């Protein structure tokens, strides 16, 4: 050791060894840190401040890897003795200077080299922490302690548990440490090697006090650091510090048995040696038999079955996609796992790892004449937390996190985020803002977006004790002219929901959507393969070109959309699989463009059984509206010529949106009040009556109990958007409005079932409405005059002539028809083809 020649004490006495800035000083090189280790080790050795021998397994391998001798090895000199007060007088001046805000009970502390961390102080701090920390009471002074004596500290309890189950590690929440003693936390993060060693030591002391005979060594595992870095931001200053990173395991090495202690036997006399410990990553074979009688040379052989080994594993961790900046490739980092951590994760797991970032120089063979100046870095793993989503969310019926590629633990938002989201939800225009933020580059279609928003939020699923269940998922069908960006909407929603599957109706078969049975090529067994709907369980299944789908495939959807299961009975497999998915489908009208002369039903051309399973059916018609066109034109021009950043200011970014949706889905479960239930019933009866209009039942989509359920779901979703626990009247009104708007019902002629295109395309201006009213009035008058109740009918053309005479102006047949239709809807007349009859 070259540095042996340097002055033993370290402390402030030698100026260039002791940085003037106390803890704030950062050590950026492992060389430095290694030196620190060594010195620190030395400075503590004379003070007989030692670690129990078991302890040394901890960082030994890692420390061996660094070119410097391991600290733990040096420390293992006087085994098992409790720490005694140091006697080194050199330290006295240090104590006076090193008072960095923490009390010095002891006048002669030992210092961690190069810092003013006093070993004793840290020791005391840890002891206080382990003994006194209680949850929900952050500051504890001595008075409190007296009162709290009867309640056990959190960690005392945990330690007892560990002892009971004979565990070998104690998980310590770093947040607790911080709460109890921020100073200790800072030291722990900055000098983890030193502090953790003391931690282990204190822990073992406590353990032996509780149960003196306890043999096993218990390690402290720190987790949940206050701040976690990204892999990308790890840099040389992080070396030898405690870091916490998230990532995905991509490779695990096989388990490496690492020798810790070896026992040799003499081949000549059969004498066994004492255990030989690993030293600098090596075990030296004794060259000579120690038995005095024997003393034969080079006769020792390793006794494999009496050596002590520990497990070791090297794991590669890779960045998750959300951390990778544009134009970059994922970074990776190696993890070194020991003992119990081995096989804690398998490739594909998303994990959060707490550990010590370390660097080791690339070893060069002795034959090499040049020295490679590279360092390899790895993380000496202390704690690993799986953030696997499937396990955590399994039981919650409406639980989808809508964020793509996010870790589920991000669904457990931190308080700050929750506060933000709640703040957002309180805004009066939150519904509009969310609408605007949904697919902002798709123009117009606000009502469609509102419907989709409801689908994202979803209603409450209900499972009655009787076993009947009601789905909470909202199914939406978009029917519309080509080029109304239906597909883009679908793509967008697909991107938003993680479990979403996007399929095209033309390319999907029934089995591809549900499930199919295949023979495993290797074993010959029949296996069930899930189709798109099953795969999008708890997600949204987007089906494009729904109309192009074969009838057979479509009929498979019946079960899925109402019962939310897929039943299979083939090849000896009878099963029912969950498919709790919302369906978002889009289709072109039957004649590929909407034909205004046909009724809505004829245009959509889907079996009513299927239609009734959609909560919302949107007719997206391409309106020849100059206003819309102009807006579109402006939008496109600005897309090409302006700075796109400056365009949409008021929209939420996609991550906020997804967080908002996820949070709402997870935490908000609105309920219906009696008043609201009343409102729903009344509204439903209204729709029902409208649908039952005589002679029209085949032409419009009639209301069924399903629609009532849809309304409930929609109202719930709308309440959820506001983070409200109760559904309010306005939600119900909006739900009704959505339902109507979707079908363009305001413009639908209930008698013929056709949509009055004029009505949609131009809207009805005030003057037009007046003219129409006048027309209706005139027609009514004539009919009153000419037709008796129950009398003979009158042809429309005759009526037209009459009208022309009476008003003295030109009257269009279509206008008359409209007027008559209005009268018919009032129940004033009935129409049979071309003839009008007073009813």
């Amino acid at each position, binding site marked *: 050791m070259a540095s042996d020649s340097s002055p033993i004490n370290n402390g402030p006495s030698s100026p260039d060894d002791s940085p003037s800035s106390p803890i704030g000083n950062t050590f950026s090189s492992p060389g430095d840190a290694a*030196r620190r280790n060594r010195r620190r080790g030395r400075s503590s050795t004379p003070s007989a401040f030692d670690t129990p021998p078991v302890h040394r397994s901890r960082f030994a391998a890692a420390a061996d890897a660094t070119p410097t001798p391991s600290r733990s090895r040096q420390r293992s000199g006087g085994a098992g003795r409790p720490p005694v007060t140091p006697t080194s007088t050199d330290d006295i001046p240090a104590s006076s200077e090193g008072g960095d805000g923490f009390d010095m009970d002891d006048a002669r502390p030992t210092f961690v080299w190069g810092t003013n961390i006093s070993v004793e102080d840290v020791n005391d701090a840890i002891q206080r922490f382990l003994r006194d920390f209680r949850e929900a009471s952050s500051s504890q002074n001595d008075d409190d302690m007296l009162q709290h004596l009867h309640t056990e500290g959190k960690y005392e309890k945990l330690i007892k548990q560990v002892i009971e189950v004979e565990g070998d590690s104690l998980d310590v929440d770093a947040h607790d440490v911080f709460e109890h003693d921020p100073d200790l936390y800072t030291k722990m993060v900055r000098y983890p090697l030193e502090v953790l060693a003391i931690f282990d030591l204190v822990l073992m002391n406590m353990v032996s006090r509780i149960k003196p005979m306890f043999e096993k060594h218990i390690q402290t595992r720190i987790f949940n650091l206050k701040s976690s870095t990204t892999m990308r931001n790890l840099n040389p200053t992080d070396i030898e510090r405690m870091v916490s990173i998230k990532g995905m395991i991509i490779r695990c090495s096989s388990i490496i048995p690492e020798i810790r202690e070896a026992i040799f036997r003499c081949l000549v006399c059969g004498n066994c040696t004492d255990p030989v410990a690993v030293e600098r990553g090596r075990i030296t074979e004794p060259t000579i038999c120690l038995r005095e009688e024997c003393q034969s040379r080079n006769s020792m052989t390793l006794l494999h079955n009496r050596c002590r080994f520990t497990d070791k594993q090297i794991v590669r961790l890779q960045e998750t996609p959300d951390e990778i900046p544009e134009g970059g490739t994922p970074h990776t980092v190696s993890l070194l796992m020991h003992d119990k951590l081995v096989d804690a994760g398998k490739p594909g797991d998303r994990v959060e790892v707490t550990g010590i970032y370390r660097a080791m120089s690339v070893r060069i063979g002795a034959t*090499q004449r040049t020295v490679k100046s590279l360092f*390899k870095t790895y993380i000496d793993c202390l704690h690993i937390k799986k953030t696997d989503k499937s396990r955590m969310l399994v039981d919650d019926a409406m639980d989808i996190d809508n964020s793509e590629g996010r870790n589920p633990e991000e669904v457990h938002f931190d308080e700050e985020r929750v506060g933000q989201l709640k703040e957002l939800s309180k805004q009066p225009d939150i519904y509009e803002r969310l609408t605007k933020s949904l697919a902002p*580059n798709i123009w117009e279609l606000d009502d469609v977006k509102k419907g989709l928003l409801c689908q994202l939020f979803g209603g409450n699923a209900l499972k009655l004790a009787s076993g009947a269940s009601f789905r909470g998922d909202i199914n939406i069908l978009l029917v519309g002219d080509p080029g109304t960006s239906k597909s883009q909407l679908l793509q967008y929603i697909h991107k938003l929901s993680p479990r979403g599957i996007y399929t095209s109706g033309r390319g999907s078969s029934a089995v591809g959507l549900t499930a199919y049975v295949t023979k495993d090529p290797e074993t010959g067994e029949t296996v069930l393969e899930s189709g798109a709907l099953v795969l999008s369980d708890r997600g949204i299944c987007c089906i494009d070109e729904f109309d192009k789908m074969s009838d057979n495939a479509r009929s498979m959807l019946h079960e899925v959309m109402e019962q939310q299961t897929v039943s299979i009975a083939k090849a000896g497999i009878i099963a029912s699989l969950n498919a709790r998915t919302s369906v978002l489908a889009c289709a072109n009208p039957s004649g590929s463009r909407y034909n205004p002369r046909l009724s809505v039903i004829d245009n959509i051309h889907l079996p009513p059984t299927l239609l009734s399973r959609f909560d919302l059916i949107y007719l997206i018609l391409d309106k020849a509206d100059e206003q819309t066109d102009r807006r579109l034109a402006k939008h496109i021009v600005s897309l090409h010529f302006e700075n796109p950043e400056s365009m949409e200011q008021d929209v939420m970014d996609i991550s906020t949106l997804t967080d908002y949706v996820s949070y709402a889905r997870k935490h908000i479960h609105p309920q219906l009040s009696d008043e609201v239930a009343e409102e729903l019933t009344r509204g439903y009866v209204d729709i029902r009556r409208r649908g039952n209009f005589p002679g029209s039942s085949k032409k419009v989509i009639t209301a069924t109990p399903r629609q009532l359920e849809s309304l409930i779901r929609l109202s719930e979703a709308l309440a959820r958007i506001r983070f409200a626990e109760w559904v309010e009247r306005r939600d119900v009104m909006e739900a009704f409005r959505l339902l109507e708007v979707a079908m363009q019902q305001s413009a639908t002629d209930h008698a013929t079932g056709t949509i009055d295109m004029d009505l949609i395309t131009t809207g009805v201006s005030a003057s037009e409405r007046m003219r129409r009213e006048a027309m209706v009035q005139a027609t009514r008058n004539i009919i009153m005059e000419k037709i008796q109740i129950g009398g003979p009918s009158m042809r429309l053309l005759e009526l037209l002539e009459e009208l022309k005479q009476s008003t003295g102006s030109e009257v269009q047949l279509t206008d008359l028809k409209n007027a008559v239709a209005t009268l018919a809807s009032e129940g004033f007349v009935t129409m049979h083809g071309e003839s009008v009859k007073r009813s």
Partner: protein
Amino acid sequence: MGGPQYDFLSNPLGAVRSTFEKAMASVSDPSSFNSGDWGAMDLFTNFLFDQSHHFQVPVLTPASMRWIKPNTLVRFRGMIQDMLGNEFYVGAYKDGAVWRTNKFMDVSQFPIGPSADTRIWERRLLYCVPVPGLNSWAQISSEAVTDQCMGWTSEQREKRPRAEAECSDMTVSSEEDQGSPSTKKMREGEQPSLASQSRESEIASSSFSLAPVPEGNSLHCLVKVYDSPESELKLNEIFEFVGILASDPEIQEDNVDNDLSNEFCEDPLRHFPPNKVVPRFHCFVHRKLAAQDFLQNNPIIEPKLDMVKGIREALLRHLTAVLGNDDVAAHFMLLHLLSKVHSRVDSLAVGKLSLNLTCFSKEIVSIFGNQLNVVVKNLMPFTHCIPLTVEYLNTASLAPKKNYDINRLETGALQLAEGSHLIVDETKLEAGTLNSLGVENARLLNNLVEWQKVEYDFKYYKMDMTTDVQLLVLSEGKSNILPADVIVPFRPSAANCSEAVTAEALEAWRWYLATVRQLPHSIESEMQQVVENDLVAARQADRSLNAQDLSRWLTMSRLMSLSFGETSLSLEHWQMVKELDRLRKERLK
């Protein structure tokens, strides 16, 4: 500091060292340098660009690899194909009482004592390959620089006549062993130990698939970049690096003695071809290259309007002739060649104009197909051609894929540099069944056309990488796999009047395409009003027009005015675009 006292070209490390020493004289601790830079980089930037010694720096090519001395200044042009993460190295260390630096070096000049005071710095590793599809005319001619190094390279120069550099297939056998880890090397048995030899052979077989274009003459390079922000260097961007070729090609870390590092499969270089095949390169200065930088004699001319117009006419004439007097197709071709993605709004790529020439029957392909390919090759710096067949779709690996066994990103045919031109020849596509890979590939192509994105496969997840590729699709009917922005039925009227093109004309055209493309573009508010009115009127007249159609018009109008060298849209050009699209629509009927 700076000045002629350093011999930058032949002894850059000397300059590095002396500036370091000079800088160290003023400070006591190297960690006071801002992230380890003491001004050496600025010095080199100054030397190269301000004093314009840039073109004197020899270019690293498979040919020049043999005579370039290690530890001299060289240039390397390439695309970042993969990023191998960061590397920690001993940046500065104390040799006795003196601070030394290791920056820009792989091995330290003086032994680092085990106890020496060290500072650890960081550098980035980038795996660079020659730009995929780089055409021969755009390859840098190293004649200019070789002249300086004449003294000891004359004999090589004789072997490598000028014509050869121009010739597109540079498969000179003597160069092969430089560029590719050929099997020959293994047979030679010149490796010191058996272990490393077998490892090399394993690498040799694996690294074949890594090369985007597995040609004999491509030189891959591992570039080590210092102190540059991460956002500056992105995947698939083309850069010119100026730096030092690593000095000791023999150094291979020898894993005999290390217990731990052996098990750490983390080393990005572990599965790496040896230094001789993939040279290590320490970069002082890097700069991003655009198409302009690939012009042979890069004249920095302000694009004057009449000159641009003249060139445009000539180029259009040429394109018309090549396309059998099909004027409309030629116009679209010109616009297509000028297109680039100029902004992205959400997932929308604005500015792309992919072209689908339909009506390419068997006969027409035989006449025009190849010719078109040649023309594009002559005009654009990086071009590719994919003959689409069912078999190709079923077997080709289009998307780059991460191979965790060797910890490298295996390139795919769609890992292309920004501004590449891609011809997809669909005429040979026949009916057949696509397997799962085929479906995946078809989807990738579709995404590329529609969103200008390629999905990279990182096994555990996929990542969309944005690209900017001009796509030209040749097909008999409208292509369904590749829904291009513009579909133009091809109507040649004359067979083929191949006119001879002078080299000057070609150069002018290349300059034109590269320069005009980069011009900024804006719209006056009056013109914007006109355009908006026109769009509204058009939509009122024809309901089948959708947002994509309107968007396409605007893209075309932008390109049209750019093609005249103008930076703002004029009514004349707007009307030209509308007329052009009308003609096209007539053909579609």
